[in-house]
């Protein structure tokens, strides 16, 4: 009996060793790929960072308001963020390549699916990022315009604009990610519609005098009292 156990054990160890020997080279290859990948990713990151610094990408980002956003979420500068992102992406790519080399069946399929999902994730992130930017820009533009036109409650208007755009952007992001598409669609529809309706009622009811005056001004050219007292700045 002892001999049977020993032979089974040795058989098992043997199988394990064989399996190990079967996978070891692949593991080694995977590690090599990982290391090489890291190197390449690092080089790419450095090059990209230099290029971005050269074209003053930071400046551009500042202009668009991206820097503010990044600093709000305690991220470093746009150049840095982009370079690091590209680094991780590249390395991840190589890692996954290495994993596929291992030849573990299920893993390969998952890897493939993950790779397919990646561009959509990237797109969604981009949409979110630019959407946030646009929302911020539009909100500020609306705020300024409302303040200068002496429209009542400009902050509310600004918030409304920001909300509308954010809702829209989120919907597109979720649709892109394929997460609860239908739900999101309907939710967006309801939210957007409700928001619009609310605004229409608010402005329509509350601002009907203003609307009338606006129309009168445009088509009848009646000068308002306050304009008579306006000075010529130049």
């Amino acid at each position, binding site marked *: 009996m002892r001999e049977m156990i020993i032979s089974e054990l040795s058989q098992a160890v043997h199988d394990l060793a064989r399996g190990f020997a079967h996978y070891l080279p692949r593991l080694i290859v995977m590690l090599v790929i990982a290391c090489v990948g890291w190197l390449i990713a690092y080089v790419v990151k450095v090059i990209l960072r230099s290029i971005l610094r050269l074209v003053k990408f930071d400046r551009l980002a500042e202009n668009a308001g991206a820097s503010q956003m990044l600093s709000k979420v305690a991220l470093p500068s746009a150049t840095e963020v982009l370079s690091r992102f590209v680094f991780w992406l590249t390395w991840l790519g190589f890692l996954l390549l290495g994993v596929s080399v291992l030849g573990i069946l299920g893993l390969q399929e998952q890897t493939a699916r993950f790779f397919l999902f990646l561009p959509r994730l990237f797109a969604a992130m981009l949409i979110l990022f630019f959407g946030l930017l646009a929302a911020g820009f539009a909100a500020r533009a609306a705020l300024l315009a409302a303040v200068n036109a002496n429209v009542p409650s400009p902050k509310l208007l600004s918030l409304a604009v920001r909300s509308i755009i954010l809702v829209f952007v989120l919907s597109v992001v979720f649709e892109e990610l394929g997460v609860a598409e239908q739900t999101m669609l309907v939710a967006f529809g309801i939210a957007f519609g409700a928001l619009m309706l609310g605004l229409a009622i608010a402005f329509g009811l509350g601002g009907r005098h203003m609307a009338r005056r606006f129309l009168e001004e445009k088509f009848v050219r009646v000068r308002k009292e306050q304009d008579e007292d306006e000075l010529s700045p*130049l």
Partner: protein
Amino acid sequence: MEEENFLTDDFLRQLIDVGEADILVGLPTHNNAKSIGAIVQTIRNGILRSFPRERAVIINADGGSRDGTRELITGLSISDVRPVSGVYALRTLHAISTQYATTPRNSDALRTILSAAELLRVKACIVISPESEAITPEWISSLIRPVYYENFDLVAPTYCRHKFDGLLTTNLLYPMVRALYGARIREAYMSEFGFSGRLGSQFLGQNQWRDAIGENGTELRLMLAAVTGGFRICQSFLGKKDPVERRAADLVPTLRQSVGVLFSALESDFAAWSAISGSQDVPTNGNDPEVLLDPLRVNRKRLREMFVKGVSDLESVFQSILTPSTLADLNRIATLDEEQFNYPAELWVKTVYEFAAAYRKSVINRDHIIQALAPLFRGRVFTFIVENRNGSANDVAKNIEGLCLEFERLKPYLLDIWKSKE
């Protein structure tokens, strides 16, 4: 040269027929049929009276008028084709017109005029605003004489204006140009002015202007180019200036084409203005500019209200632009009631300078920075009106002079925040 492609073939043909000229009067227009006839006749009289022997031409750069403005102008030319009764002229006086676009853009109009002046090798050129109904024939002589006979390159106008007319100029443009560029040009934003062919050609060739083509406010750029280029500048008293009808909604576009242009010019002219300290008087012809003191009804309350609301609503925007201490001061002022409200000169200067620095760094979109200045300007206007409510012409002048000195005193402050990286 790009200029020939910018001008239409038809206009070029008309320029060929005019040939070389000594004096050019440029008229940018857009639907000015009501007033332009009388203005062009006055211009014509001015030319015939003061420069009867010179070869003169009136060039109209039109932005798509549909009320017959162009025909009114060209109909006033003097030539042997149609004898003009009651007008005696030694020479033909051409009045030609071109449409540079279907929507008016002052920079394109000015570019057309400058190009024509260069092609016709004109010695002296003036630009007249089509809204200047108070024009007299002497304006022509006042604006051209210094260029034509005394070798000046730029003649800025001075007027007899109401003390509360043109407050953006008196409270921002004039003091700032004076403090930074060192030239005391009273009407920093010139609606009519004279310039030499030399300055015009130089300005046309400048790259910075080419980049900014399409935006308004080119007159300001021209003036700054004259200052930084070391050209000879003087001022001539013209007379009364009709206050232009302006509505509350016009403040932001006005800010864009004046303050916006000034701020962006600061960037390219940094080397020039950072080295200057103090300011010089500019030679002036004719009477001193007068200040009219008749009482004027102004809705002061609204000005203060817009300031207060602006400060509170735009808090987030101001946080990106102003320093914390300045913002705190503004918040403090916003709490004052009408009797005690005061936007002192020093704070105003700091505000403007910080805006300029923010503009340069593009902390947020530049156009938004300009828009954000509007409510603050209104607050400043309130204070200015209150301070000068009962003042004599001398008092008003002193008040403005005080403001200018404040701008000059705080110039190092601007240089500080300009250079610092936020």
